[in-house]
């Protein structure tokens, strides 16, 4: 074990902004986002890749950012929760979450929004079962999921994909 791990220069587009950064090869993507770039909206809730609080979009796909090294996203395009409503106007999905009381402490919420928005992109009219399946990788301990599922369905009805 050496004091300074090998590092690499990576170029990655996040929420429309291109970053060029030197990162240790071992650094997880979620730590790169949170600690190096201060994009703290993406959260960490476990150490085994189960909870989904770290979910982001990688080239359009929902992915757990704790299961990737930062060096693996060199050249990629990423969206985090901060990129959903960059001008501060909540998207129909975010509005639906608030209306349906689909968040309490808000810690799982960024991950839920990223999984849900990815679902609505590929399936604008999901059934309740399809919503549950899409969210099975996101753990929430506050809501019991019922209101979250309702929020996603409401957003789908209003035609909003994110």
């Amino acid at each position, binding site marked *: 074990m050496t004091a300074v791990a090998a590092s690499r220069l990576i170029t990655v587009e996040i929420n429309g902004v291109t970053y060029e950064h030197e990162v240790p090869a071992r650094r997880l993507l979620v730590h790169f986002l949170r600690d190096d770039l201060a994009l703290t*909206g993406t*959260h960490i809730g476990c150490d085994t890749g189960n909870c989904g609080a770290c979910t982001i979009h990688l080239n359009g796909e929902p992915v757990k950012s704790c299961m990737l090294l930062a060096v693996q996203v060199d050249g990629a395009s990423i969206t985090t929760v901060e990129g959903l409503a960059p001008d501060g106007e*909540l998207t129909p999905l*975010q509005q639906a979450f608030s209306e349906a009381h689909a968040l309490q402490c808000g810690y799982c919420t960024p991950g839920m929004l990223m999984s849900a928005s990815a679902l609505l992109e590929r399936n604008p009219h999901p059934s309740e079962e399809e919503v549950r399946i899409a969210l*099975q990788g996101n753990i929430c301990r506050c809501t019991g999921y019922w209101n979250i599922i309702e929020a996603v369905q409401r957003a789908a009805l209003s035609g909003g994909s994110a």
Partner: protein
Amino acid sequence: MTTVETPTTEAAPETTLERGYVGLDYPRKEDRRLLQGQGVFVDDIKRWGMGYVHFVRSPYAHAKILSIDVSKALAVKGVYGTLTGDEVALQTDPFFQIASEPGAHVRDYALAVGKARYVGDPVAAVVAETRELARDAAELVEVEYEPLPAIVDARRALDEDAPILHEECGGNLAWQGTYEWGDLDAAFAEADHIVRISELHFDRFNSTPLELDGALVEYNRGTGQWTLHCNNQFPGFAIIMMGPALRVGLDKLRFVTQDIGGGFGNKITSHPQLVACCLLARKLNRPIQWTEWRTEFHQSMSHGNERWFQDIEVAVKADGTLLGFRCKALDDAGAYLRYEPLGGVIWSQVTPGMYRWRNIRVDFTQVMTNKAPVSPNRGYSRMQHLWLTERIIDIVAHELGFDPIEIRKRNYIQPEDMPYETPNGCVYDSGDYPRALDLALELIGYDQLEERRRDAESRGRLLGFGIGSTLDSGTNNFGQSQLINPDLQFSGNNEVATVKLDILGEIVVTLGTTPQGQGHETTAAQVVADILGCSPDDVTVRAGHDTYWNSHAGFSGTYASQFAVTGLGAVKGATEELARQMRVLASMVFGCSPDDIELVDKHARIKGNPEAALPFQALGAIVNAGNAGFPEDPPPLNARYVFRPKFEVPDKERKFGNLTLTYAMQIHACVVEVDPETGYYEVVDYAAVDDCGSRVNPKIVEGQVMGATAHALGAAIWESFVYDDEGNLLTPNFYDYHVPHALDMPPLRTGALESPSPFTPLGTKGMGEGGGAGIHAVCAALQDALRSRGGAIVSDSHNPYHRVWAMLRDPDATRANVEVVSK
């Protein structure tokens, strides 16, 4: 999704509040920032030059620490420093112990001193430039252990030859007490049936909030003060523990919280790690960043009380009236007493459960074992006892052939009995349990049950139906701690709110509470808006807690189902005082009496004369910037109010007195389908009815009911902290400890009643914990499903599929647990 019934015929609470915003599903103020990822959780906070700390933890459940060598870790470039138990023992005093003899002799420090007592017990800490480096360096710390035999089964902890965790205690007993009220002998003599249950077991789990414990701790050398940005949910308690340990006055510890990712009681006892961070911040002269790992949380933080109930005897009359019960309770506190042994008295807030029996005896013993220390978990200690009462009534019904619904209605405390004094002097404030049960039955479609049973049978499934009724007692009287230890000085309760009208007419509220998703900013604003005659959007409620706001008191925090009473009571008091001051100021300006002034539409105006109106901005400006010309001092428009519920110190001899101010109630109904071949089962339908008195924001209340239901289902079916014989935790992370996800949840219908509390400022009752009704209901439903296959008795709170399979294979093994003796 909700059926709401109008309030029952209880006396209206003493309140001057008209229902304006209070009672509405007002959209949450917290949502906007949380939805955009702009919440500030403790790991989001950065400081220049901060060091990340990683704890070195014992791999042994019980071991002497022979030596710790940190030299290799310190030699690594980028490592800032270390801390070991020896340093802690020199620089701090052991944490104050709540217990009387023998638990009082437990020596508990920020790091293990001399001995490690559970797998995960922190023995050293390493601070480094990056998270990764801190972990790597921690692996270079060489600790020499001498492993000792471990005691893992609480039922063996008091055996002659059991390994002893704390030699100074002389054994593993933490606390013992006998509770007895009524006349047990007479009750058992009068009984037509005596039902004996030899053992029931309430399993070990907790609420695993998604955000882990953490802190960013800074030390100010000049003033000797620490600032702790953290997510501890009970700063009042933490400060009392930490100050004396660090040998400083309490004002040297400034707690700051903002957004907290779930607490559920599990973020109350992080004070040992916080002390370690304080020592490191001072030693290394840099801010210390600590974020717990999921595995560390599972291994070492806040397990819920695991409790055995043994030698239970129930006195029952021929018509199904329950006269009383007696039992032994054995509580497993884990390796250290951090909030314990308060669990040994807190259950008695709900001694009779929801039933009218008057003759009850519980011999309560709490022991220590080589497992994670126990501390409050959603439903803390009452849930375990209420599960006992529900198992009792369900087993009695099962054995004596009573209908579970009829026997409950026969034995429930009736609405006309309210307020009801229990055998140990607690006063249940209000509630209509039979009506709530009827509503639950309606929501679950009870009438179609037999048809559903036949349909399930045709598919080869066993259908089961169960009821779980429970109470959520809220607003503790801390005087109950004196029943554990008569030398303690704690009693009563309090919470503080400060409300001011600022120079530009801004209404600002600060609280002493530490919300973790309960929507305090929103509900507080609703209460303020109704009193001041404005909209909740005009009210700014500062997020979280900050010692510097001087808006807190000794019991401040968010725990134990009390915010709607204590927090909102403080808000109401402070706002009413501010309103009075505003009317006085307006009357000074207009030259009339304050009684002539009303607050409407963000103006203070003379009643019936809308022309004579001062906007709030004007009032604020006068007091802050234009106060010349008044013959008398204008009021400050800045009101601080301490809410104090009226309690007496309980009678220590009789263990008698009111221990909690309010008693919310939930009744759940559950339908399961069991596969008799495999023991696999599904909850196919579910209904939850809640009554927490007047609801300030019904949607927020419903959210809490849903969350409590999900936690209870998790504990009933999937979640358990399982230890092997060596004390290794086999479910130390989310890979092995299954937290239910979206596919696991049954369809849910909710209903609500409102029986206002006659004892609280707003008629509200605290309700966040819930009371674990889901566990009671699933146990009852499983027992019902298995009735036709040998009538197995459910005697464990946790029923994973393999346990159901075992009950199907050998129902007689479980039936041996129960004996009925009839006249």
